[in-house]
């Protein structure tokens, strides 16, 4: 069945058109976050971290330190996303004393997608649905005992249907 490849119709795939467009849109005035090291612990919205482009800058802005991969961080993500607008991603961990969990999508316009503060007594596990601009790596960061652990999976994303 030869599917003629044609530019997919603009209106239908608008949600993915965002990839080409990198616009620095200020997210409203929010007081500058305290020194990065405490960024995650305090109760302020990590404004600066959400504005960073790359994953590394976002992690630095959010936690002020780097993460090391650990198999104690179990990540559940689809191999091929059903649709780039609704990608179910979940993480659980056996690490103890977890204070924060974050999700980053490497090649989204802004890498940091979501960050969760885990108070004492809350189970260190989160499931949510994220938007992904294209096939890329999704990374989960767990802050436990002041150190950062991570897990990464590639999730394939592409348009569906025969184009129109």
């Amino acid at each position: 069945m030869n599917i003629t490849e044609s530019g997919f119709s603009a209106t239908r795939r608008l949600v993915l058109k965002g990839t080409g467009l990198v616009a620095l849109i200020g997210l409203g005035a929010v007081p500058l976050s305290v020194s990065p090291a405490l960024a995650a612990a305090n109760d302020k919205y990590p404004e600066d971290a959400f504005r960073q482009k790359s994953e590394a800058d976002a992690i630095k802005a959010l936690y002020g330190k780097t993460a090391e991969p650990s198999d104690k961080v179990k990540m559940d993500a689809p191999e091929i996303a059903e649709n780039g607008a609704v990608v179910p991603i979940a993480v659980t961990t056996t690490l103890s004393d977890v204070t924060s969990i974050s999700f980053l999508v490497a090649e989204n316009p802004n890498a940091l997608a979501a960050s969760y503060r885990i108070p004492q007594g809350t189970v260190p596990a989160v499931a949510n649905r994220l938007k992904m601009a294209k096939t890329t790596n999704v990374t989960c960061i767990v802050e436990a005992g002041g150190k950062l652990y991570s897990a990464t999976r590639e999730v394939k994303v592409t348009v569906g249907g025969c184009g129109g």
Partner: protein
Amino acid sequence: MKPRFAIHLALAMFALSLVAMPLFTITARAADKIDPEADKKAFQKFFMEKFPKLKPEDFVNGPYSMNEDLHKQWEEKEQFPPYEFSLEAGKEMFSRPFKNGKSYADCFPNQGIGIRQNYPYFDEKEGKVITLELALNRCREANGEAPFSYVKDEMAALTAYMAFTSRGKPFDIKIPNDPRALEAYQKGKEYFYTRRGQLNFSCATCHVQSPGERIRAEVLAPALGILNAMPIYRSEWSGMGTTSRRFTTCNSQIRGVPLTPQDDEYRNLEYYLSYVSNGMPISGPGARP
């Protein structure tokens, strides 16, 4: 878009038919008698044999019964399905009376609860197929209210609620012994198998020849049970879609100009597709990629 392609396509089709012509004359078909019952048996047998591992009721989950990775994503979504808001809106709209005090419940048998599996039906007075969406708009007009668009959220919300009240009930489409009903059924079947659009696909090209295969990121659903989950919340539309919206978008995807929603062709198509899925449980409203 390569206009050249269209010419080659036309020529290719022309050449193809020359080859097929002799073949066609050899297997000239007697004017076959319209036999919906036999069609349904053959239709269901075809899919059951093509997917032996699937239980009959699995077919109503479309692409999610075709692929393990997709099935997992669906199960996760179903914990708190995205059509939840539309379903609640539909329930609220369904009970809200019209300006004249009447409400939808007065237009439908059994107050409209648990009857979705009987739609579409053939109205012998009018000699036409009546679908749930058409009946809802007729109810509105009969009570002095403006009809809803067939492809927008209000119609999707109403049909979502009515489908929800019929969940699990098997499709129960009847074809009365009326030549006009048989003809409507036959026209629906013809539409289903007719190639259209510049891509020259028919519904069958995708949903009979290659269900379970991918068309770019999407996995194609089998035609059996394909309407059981209607209306559907599609991640791709990030919104609700009625049967009408699904038919018209399928047309434009293969570069065929869509007809007007609820035209005869679409209602007959829905009549045929629902009939051959008789016995399959209603699973609407559904979530889809």
